[in-house]
């Protein structure tokens, strides 16, 4: 793979970038801070004995005007990428979002509107070269309207629907779109929260994601147990959902 990773400097993105770099795939990092990018690129470079320095460029999901230039830089460095991975996204608890309307606006813009715009840039480029892979992080929070993730979940629900439709529409043209739905994963994003049962590690999720990309799967619940959990939750009747706080 020749993969561009938006969000590959932290959390699950970092684990995916490492997994790809260690097995010899080419990677190019996109994130919003130079120092962070340089350090992560150095880390990836050191992880494979015979690796050219890993490239990187600035890309901020709050600045869609920079998306094309960032992907140009990746294209130039990789000699045409064939995979794009998006792990970048924002999270806050429902309480925090309800208390901060401006952050709510930013979160839904970043997670939904601007992620879709970024994916549009990416998938157009991939399609002109006969397809490729696009893996984007949604969440189990987008599977059902739920009290603790009303706002965050809705941004991911929109993203999930978009990704599903991309798969329907472009699968025949060689574009494999993977919608990743992680359950609770122990990363910086969830560091202040109490991990529920079946909480996953970034490395475990990264392994699942890379395998799903290799196999060109359209959807992935990870850790796997969450497929079952969400199956139950999707079928709970409304009167139950109104009562419980999950």
């Amino acid at each position, binding site marked *: 793979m020749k993969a561009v990773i938006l969000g590959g*400097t*932290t*959390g699950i993105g*970092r684990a995916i970038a490492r997994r790809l770099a*260690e097995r010899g795939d080419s990677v190019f990092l996109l994130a919003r801070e130079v120092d*962070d990018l340089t*350090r*992560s690129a*150095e*880390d990836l470079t*050191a*992880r494979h*004995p015979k690796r050219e320095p890993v490239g990187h460029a600035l890309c901020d999901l709050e600045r869609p005007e920079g998306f094309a230039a960032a992907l140009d830089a990746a294209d130039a460095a990789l000699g045409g990428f064939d995979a794009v991975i998006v792990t970048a996204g924002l999270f806050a608890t429902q309480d925090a979002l309800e208390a901060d309307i401006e952050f709510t606006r930013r979160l839904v813009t970043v997670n939904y509107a601007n992620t879709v715009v970024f994916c549009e840039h990416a998938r157009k480029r991939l399609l002109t070269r006969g397809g490729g892979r696009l893996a984007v992080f949604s969440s189990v929070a987008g599977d059902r309207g739920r009290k603790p993730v009303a706002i965050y979940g809705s941004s991911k629900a929109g993203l999930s629907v978009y990704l599903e439709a991309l798969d329907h529409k472009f699968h025949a043209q060689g574009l494999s779109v993977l919608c990743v739905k992680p359950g609770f994963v122990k*990363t*910086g994003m969830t*560091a202040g929260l109490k991990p529920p049962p079946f909480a996953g590690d970034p490395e475990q999720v990264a392994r699942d994601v890379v395998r799903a990309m290799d196999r060109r799967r359209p959807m992935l619940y990870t850790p796997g147990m969450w497929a079952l959990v969400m199956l139950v939750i999707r079928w709970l009747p409304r009167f139950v959902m109104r009562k419980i706080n999950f």
Partner: protein
Amino acid sequence: MNPRTTPTLSGWGRLPAPGVEKLSEDLERLTRGAALTRGLGRSYGDSSLPAKADDLVACSRMADRILGFDPETGVLRAEAGFSLVELNRLFMPRGWFSPVTPGTKFVTLGGMVASDVHGKNHHVEGCFGAHVRSLRMRLADDSIVDCGPEQEPELFDATVGGMGLTGHILEVEFSLARIPSRWIHMESERMPSIDEFLAGLGRAAPAFPMTMGWIDCLHRGRSMGRGILMAGRWAEASEAGELAPRAAHPLTMPVDLPNLAINDLTVAAFNALYYWKHLRRRATTLVAPDPFFYPLDAILEWNRVYGPRGFTQYQCVIPRQAGAPAVREFMDLLTKLGGASPLCVIKDCGPEGRGMLSFPLEGTSIAVDMAVSPQIQSIVDRLNEFVIAAGGRIYLTKDRFTRPEHYRAMEPRLERFLAAREKYDPHRKLRSGQSVRLLGDVA
């Protein structure tokens, strides 16, 4: 507050203290205003625990990036949360290994510096700190400075073995050691008594870069101190062949065992098995690094065998001048006091390093696990009194029960360390449960 819902942190000995740790990839930001940084919590006692429940404790675990590696010289620079597991996984296949490794690979670089860890090769290579070229630190006044053996040497010497009390280590630069193969040539020998054990360690030291032994500390009388001496060196490529060791898949201790699981009987059985497994008196084998360096890592969370009451480790070093009789007397006292464990490790240490509070000194180090019982304080007191009289000292990273007056009596270097602390942290912003207990910091 409800004690069941109050969040706690604990070290490897599983004695909890109220507090929470903050995690982030950005250690530089995380340590601003923090009272303590901890790594993977493999220190046994209270050195990685907060002095007060609301102290900000930074955890370095997510700050784990490699920042540079020079394949010509083997110099590696990484963030403080980079672990030895990752180091081994990535660099052993390329012919490099940590210059010094403790008996577990689940430790961070920051923890290895702060405890100035030693390994089986201490008599040849010294402690980890001897291989460190540079540290980047956040100090108590929130400034960020670089230090090393030549740059800001006072800060460096106080930090190496300083148990996190001089500043937060953000980055570590050190030299890896070249290894000729991925296998260890090991010779093991059954030792019938403590005197023969000490003589055996002495004989092995000049011949082997790595030595240590397991002692059965239940046996008294003539066979007191019997056990197995292990000496090793990296096998040459020609001896080792092409095969790579199989990746280890550790098991996890699924539950806490009841408090009574480790009683004298089970320990005695375990030790007898370990001793007689070596049927031949002497054996030479080729072993993989994992079982050689990290036999206990084969079972993750093995500390749960001690049950909910927790445990501690007593580790001390008896100076060479005190001679073999002092070691024999110590073993005698240890076996008399009880509190035995299957884990008693003996090791020959080389000369003291430059870390102001670094543990090893030329002599014999003995480490033994003990379940926490109502007698634990008096056992530790008795052992400490012996160690003070013998001119030895204890290892802070294992300690939870030493009294401040005992620590002061065994640590003539303390004044120098306190002077450095006064200079770099006059207001004692940096503190831990251990510094409150031993150094009188205000909680």
